[in-house]
């Protein structure tokens, strides 16, 4: 063969995930993982999303037949809770910083920008003085490493039950502002739910989608081919 390509080709999402993890671990973040089939406590309750509250409608959740307590996780924020619970149980305490890439699920119709399954990358940093300016610093650093120095980041008000203040952040890339994801300062109730004293500790969390980043990075017109097992997708 002329093009004797011995090495296989990696899926573009894997490239994005691995690059992202590398950037964050270089900054001192630890990789954390958690289950995709999650219980209500870790996906909702502990994250300050009360039962019978409109906030639970913000995401279209897949509930599991015959298992009242289980859902397909709607975000990687469940990993925050699991990590903090384990940390406290094993006698640890802040400061810490984790990064958790993982698959999430939303029960919504698919189109060029939405899939029922998608990847998020959750970041969480807690310490005595971790603030919103640090959040902006970390996110700017990340996207510059990913997309080049010529980007700009801005925050807009938003709402998530597990952060206060909550923001949505946009990225200016190739002269256009693009919505990237949500973030905020971890809500005191979330820390309390995991056994961390919110009077003493504070920090931020973020959870942008990774398909979005992949699409922007590579200029893809549609995210759907990502999950069709089609090698024509592996172009990089």
């Amino acid at each position, binding site marked *: 063969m002329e093009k004797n390509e011995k090495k296989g080709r990696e899926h573009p999402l894997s490239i994005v995930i691995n690059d992202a993890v590398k950037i964050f671990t270089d900054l001192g973040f630890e990789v954390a993982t958690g289950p995709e089939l999650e219980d209500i406590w870790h996906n909702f309750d502990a994250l300050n999303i009360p039962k019978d509250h409109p906030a639970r409608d913000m995401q279209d959740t897949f509930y599991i037949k015959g298992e009242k307590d289980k859902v397909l996780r709607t975000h990687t924020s469940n990993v925050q809770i699991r990590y903090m619970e384990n940390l406290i149980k094993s006698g640890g305490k802040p400061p810490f910083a984790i990064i958790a890439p993982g698959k999430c699920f939303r029960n919504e119709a698919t189109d060029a920008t939405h899939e029922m399954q998608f990847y998020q990358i959750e970041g969480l940093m807690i310490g005595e003085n971790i603030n919103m300016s640090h959040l902006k610093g970390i996110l700017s650093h990340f996207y510059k490493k990913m997309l080049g120095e010529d980007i700009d980041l801005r925050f807009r008000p938003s709402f998530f039950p597990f952060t*206060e203040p909550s923001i949505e952040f946009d990225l200016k890339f190739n002269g256009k502002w693009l919505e990237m994801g949500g973030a905020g300062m971890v809500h005191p109730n979330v820390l309390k739910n995991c056994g961390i004293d919110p009077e003493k500790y504070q920090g931020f969390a973020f959870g942008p989608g990774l398909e979005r980043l992949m699409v922007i990075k590579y200029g893809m017109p549609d995210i759907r081919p990502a999950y069709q097992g089609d090698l024509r997708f592996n172009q990089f």
Partner: protein
Amino acid sequence: MKISYNWLQNYFEEKLPEPEKVAEEIIFHSFEVESLDKLGTGGKIDWIFDIKVLPDRAHDCLSHFGIAKEISAIFNLKVLPSPKSGGGQDLGQGLSFSLREKARPCPKEETSLQIEIQSDKCLRYIGRIVRNIKIGKSPDWLKEKLETIGQRSINNIVDAANFVMFDLGQPIHCFDLDKLESPKIIIRNAKEGEKIITLDKKEVNLDESILLIADEKNPLVIAGIKGGIKAEVDENTKNIIIEVANFDAVSTRKTARKIGILTDAVKRYENEISPELCEQAMNEITEIIFNLAGGDVEKIVDVYPKKPEQKNVFVSVNYINKRLGTFFSKEEIENVFERLNFEYEEENGEFKILIPLSRIDITGPHDIVEDVIKILGYERIKGELPEIDWKPKTNENYLKMFFARNKLLNDGYSEVMTYSFRDKGEVEVLASASDKKFLRTNLSDGLKESLKLNQLNAPLLGINEVKIFEIGTVFKKSGEEIHIAFNNKKEIKEMNLDEFMKSADSFLNGLAGVGDPENRGPEKKIMPMKFKMWSAFPFIFRDIAVWMPEGEDPKELKKILIENGTELLIKEPYIFDSFTKEGKTSYAFRLVFQSYERTLKNEEIDEIITKISHKIKENSSWQIR
């Protein structure tokens, strides 16, 4: 929620900034504005904002008044305490509009109305009888106001109630008094087996969990959700009861979902509007009805079992700056409090803020932080990298997947991802927007389909053998597990991550710091790397094998193939086979043709091949096999 610019303007003495400016500032200080549309022509122009009010402010911002308060804080403009009315005596906090007439009702000192609350799910109930009203069409200003936000005009009474809901965010219901057993309203739980026919003529079966507004005999309204036909206001109505009430948010939400009726009223109640709003809304609706339909207004009956208490929240300048990483001065922060109409005082170096009853979202100092930064602007946060003193650990799971992926990539396997949903399995989702309701129990089924697809595309991919793998979670009754699957020719091998690691052990031992360095490190892969979407039309491939003298470079041949392959040649021709015999080497090239616009015909490709063959034959030292 649709919000009219002209409607908002009624709340301000000063001229509002241009609609585009208002929209932009709402986006950066309050909520997302999904669209801004211009309505009308000539002298009658309005702009409609579609504002996505966030769930934590839906209790006080799902109304023009709510958005006016936001605008007031953002632009530091005063919201009129009793908006433009153009004189006349003030009826409490009546929010009259210049559009409205100016007559003020003088309520009678007595009333025959009785109200009895039998359930703690009703937090407040204000009722008022108005007798001898005149049902009719709504005036143009009211019709127009409702139409601009997409509401249909029905009659002056119903329209007035709707108007006040979109103005203040308080749902209102009006009954035909003469259709009741007696002028007595009872708020109670429904009885098992009880039924109600709603205004849109649907029969709803009730049970004890459902709160009703009833007369002494019959259900009249599913509380906070939908009116019944029994006491409907119609063209013959003379005497009415106006209901301005507040119901428990959770219970209203549960009932609405259970019976499948979602109304604008439900949307407001389920977000926990303040029962304090009732009084203001009753004043406004009374005034509008009196102006539009006349009548004799009786005094209100207000049953308010437990008036909520205003809470204090303590917050310091330091606390706010510490969380935001900012350096706001005390004056800047105080200015925000004033713009938000917070009553506050200083106590031991802290602010003691008396939280308005309408702001149930504020429960502690962390909430004040958000209000401050929203008004002062997120652009004031600079951004810096933090330093934290800790030692991150290695995540075994992630590392294993990382190793496994690299091992397979190095062995020539390409990675695919397939759907977690299948049409059969052991774990089923309750409802799905797709027909695949089960979670996969293996990766093999998806990989098989992927294999088939890629084998068909092998010429296009320029590969002889398809080698693929997937790493992903599978779901069984016993729980979830990370699996790895890859193919060996047509056969699929699948195992869990740990099994794979064991079998790959020897490989890993000899491979410290795995991960091809050439392929790692994001810095190396910064643009430009543009994805190219493939054509949706089928491709056609042709093979051409040519004998050449041994040792001759086939690049001349390839050049001919490219030059004559036309623009339909979708990729560079590639050698898929070569061997040498008796001083000659045979090179077999594969040519793949495809169009982005149409399905190709065999004949047109044959023509291209014929042309290429002629070109090849011009070289006498070459022979086509």
